[in-house]
């Protein structure tokens, strides 16, 4: 990024200069930072009705108009990110030739106009090679001028590119993120062992072979593991493996994550003593049946049920005394809510149901994000760039030998003071210099 002023540029040129200027980039960064705060305070990605209920009409209007319920996907946030990308791209393109020129350039004689140049000391006689070595430089190069001989050596020329790599890294990350948002997808799949089905928006089938939870002695969870098989459209198995927390199953650009778990039971529904439906009911689900006359919601589950302080609770995660908390809806109205044991029958009007065979199901998240390799590359560029910019700053050591004596000059545009103190400590023991 740059901060230069040209004499009387045209309006278009001023706009162009503004867009790629460092000041514009900084202002954009600050605006993005400040507006990001909104998304950390205001609940995100809820239905608009939530905000309508929670906030007054004025605030709701602001939320709806500026898409504050989904800050990071809003048009203005994406526009700000695109503007920042343009700023980074333009300033990177404009700066590169100049930086490469600086890198290749081997300035020899000290030029008093140059930034970061300083006079270090003067002597009558020195051991030139030893001085360069002691100061941490390779053997000097020689350059003859009208005023005498100049010996010089540069170091860390690549440091000129540090901030450029940083800006490119940031640009690559932003672009990769946007690619992931546009071209990526996410879906979920859940079931008890034995369940299989197609993965939404893909030609693949997923089969849950097994699901286990490892507990520690204190009943805390050590790990959740799903054994999975993935089949292609010809029903040929293309991958078999496990997905556990921190170790997703990767197949054909998809990543299958062990995301959650819950309880499921077999439910048998009867009407006037005749079987109406048998199905697997998962925790959180509502089963609606018989032309919406009856609905049963699996509200909660207590594997080791105990009635404690007036509330249902569980003593352990193990199914020693499994009970299910259900909510029953009859003709659209909530009619009953209670805890039921496995095998116990619940009767309401002409309906009856019972639940049995409790098992834990696995909840899988399936993601494809084509932006990941780019984001990783951008991250590496960012780290390399910052390290290069801060710790490999370019410096030059110059010895000028002329009729006036021997002068030691040094040049470090980004670390003049540090280089000076570094030279002082390195050269203080150099007898031919001190």
């Amino acid at each position: 990024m740059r901060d230069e002023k040209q004499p009387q540029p045209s309006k278009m040129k001023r706009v162009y200069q503004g867009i790629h200027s460092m000041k514009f980039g900084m202002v954009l960064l600050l605006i993005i930072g400040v507006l990001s705060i909104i998304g950390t305070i205001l609940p995100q990605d809820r239905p608009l009705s939530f905000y309508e209920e929670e906030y007054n009409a004025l605030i709701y209007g602001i939320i709806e108009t500026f898409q504050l319920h989904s800050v990071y996907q809003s048009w203005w946030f994406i526009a700000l990110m695109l503007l920042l990308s343009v700023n980074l791209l333009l300033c990177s393109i404009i700066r590169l030739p100049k930086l490469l020129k600086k890198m290749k350039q081997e300035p020899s004689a000290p030029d008093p106009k140059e930034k970061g140049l300083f006079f270090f000391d003067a002597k009558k006689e020195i051991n030139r090679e030893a001085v360069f070595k002691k100061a941490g430089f390779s053997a000097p190069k020689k350059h003859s001028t009208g005023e005498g001989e100049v010996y010089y050596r540069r170091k860390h020329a690549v440091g000129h590119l540090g901030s450029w790599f940083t800006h490119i890294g940031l640009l690559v990350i932003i672009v990769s993120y946007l690619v992931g948002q546009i071209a990526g997808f996410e879906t979920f799949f859940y079931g008890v062992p034995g369940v299989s089905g197609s993965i939404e928006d893909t030609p693949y089938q997923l089969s849950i072979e097994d699901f286990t939870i490892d507990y520690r002695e204190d009943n805390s969870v050590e790990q959740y593991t799903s054994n999975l098989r993935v089949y292609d459209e010809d029903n040929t198995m293309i991958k078999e493996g496990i997905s556990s927390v921190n170790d997703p199953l990767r197949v054909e650009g998809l990543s299958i994550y062990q995301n959650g778990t819950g309880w499921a039971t077999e439910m048998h529904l009867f009407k006037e003593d005749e079987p109406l439906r048998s199905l697997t009911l998962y925790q959180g689900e509502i089963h609606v049946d018989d032309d919406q006359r009856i609905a049963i919601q699996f509200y909660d589950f207590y594997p080791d049920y105990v009635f404690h302080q007036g509330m249902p609770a569980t003593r352990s995660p193990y199914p020693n005394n499994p009970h299910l908390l259900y909510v029953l809806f009859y003709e659209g109205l909530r009619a009953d809510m209670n805890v039921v044991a496995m095998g116990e029958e619940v009767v309401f009007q002409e309906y009856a149901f019972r639940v049995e065979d409790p098992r834990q199901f696995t909840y899988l998240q399936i993601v494809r994000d084509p932006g990941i390799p780019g984001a990783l590359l951008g991250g590496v560029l960012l780290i390399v760039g910052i390290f290069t910019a801060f710790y490999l700053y370019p410096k030059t050591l110059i010895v000028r030998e002329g009729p006036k004596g021997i002068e030691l000059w040094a040049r470090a545009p980004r670390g003049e003071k540090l280089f000076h103190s570094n030279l002082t400590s390195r050269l203080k023991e150099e007898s031919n210099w001190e």
Partner: protein
Amino acid sequence: MGVDQSLQLEITLFNLSIALYLLSMVLYLVFFIAKKERAGDFGSYLIKGGFMLHTVALGVRWVAAGRVPLSNQYEFATAFAWGIVLCFIIFEIKFSYKAMGTFVTPIAFLIMGYAAMQSKDIRPLMPALQSNWLSIHVGTAVISYGAFGVAAGVSLMYLLRNQFSNSPFVKKHLPDLSTLDLISYRAIALGFFFLTLVIVTGAIWAEQAWARYWSWDPKETWSLITWIIYAVYLHARIMRGWQGKKTALFSVIGFICVLFTYIGVNTLLPSIHSYALLLPFEW
């Protein structure tokens, strides 16, 4: 040695290191206010002694827990203070300005105080935290936050030196503005490099554990905001009209963001980093 005994030893070492940090802070204050050079020397010795005990305390906890002790509020707070003291010692040796201690040791002491108020129980890790990335991600955060703590202390010195530039006392006891600016810059450069590592390693870990390398979780977002503040500081420093007082203020604001990212987000905002509930199901 059993876990309980190890924990007791760790608590004793932790308390001793707090005591030494407190004494060191007092001595640095005496050095600064009463112009006692010896007090500054003793302050410097004591903080190094406290740092050694603190390091042993972290080591004992590491062994007792059987994992890197960087996974709850107490463990990160004590490591955060350790990072500040480590960076302070490095910068004190490198730049030889004892007055820095007067401004940096209170920050370290306050963080230690916060750690002392947290539960010191050793609990087994939830599955999502059982990753080698935890050590790298949080370990780099310790160094980053530590360096920013030092930078904030030095920037406060800068603001003081700038505000009372005519005071002979301030002139005598505080380095000149360009030196303070340089120290603050070097500390922020170190912190910024490590903060970038924190964010990148966190993203890699998040992709493995939570399916998204960036999901705008409040902790992530506040880390980004902190990164932006320091990025603006680093750019502003080379812009005309922005050097000096304004950049020193940015450094202080940046550290307030660091503290909010660490404490505020965990306590005030819902986040997957609070490790409370990830899904509607039990997890």
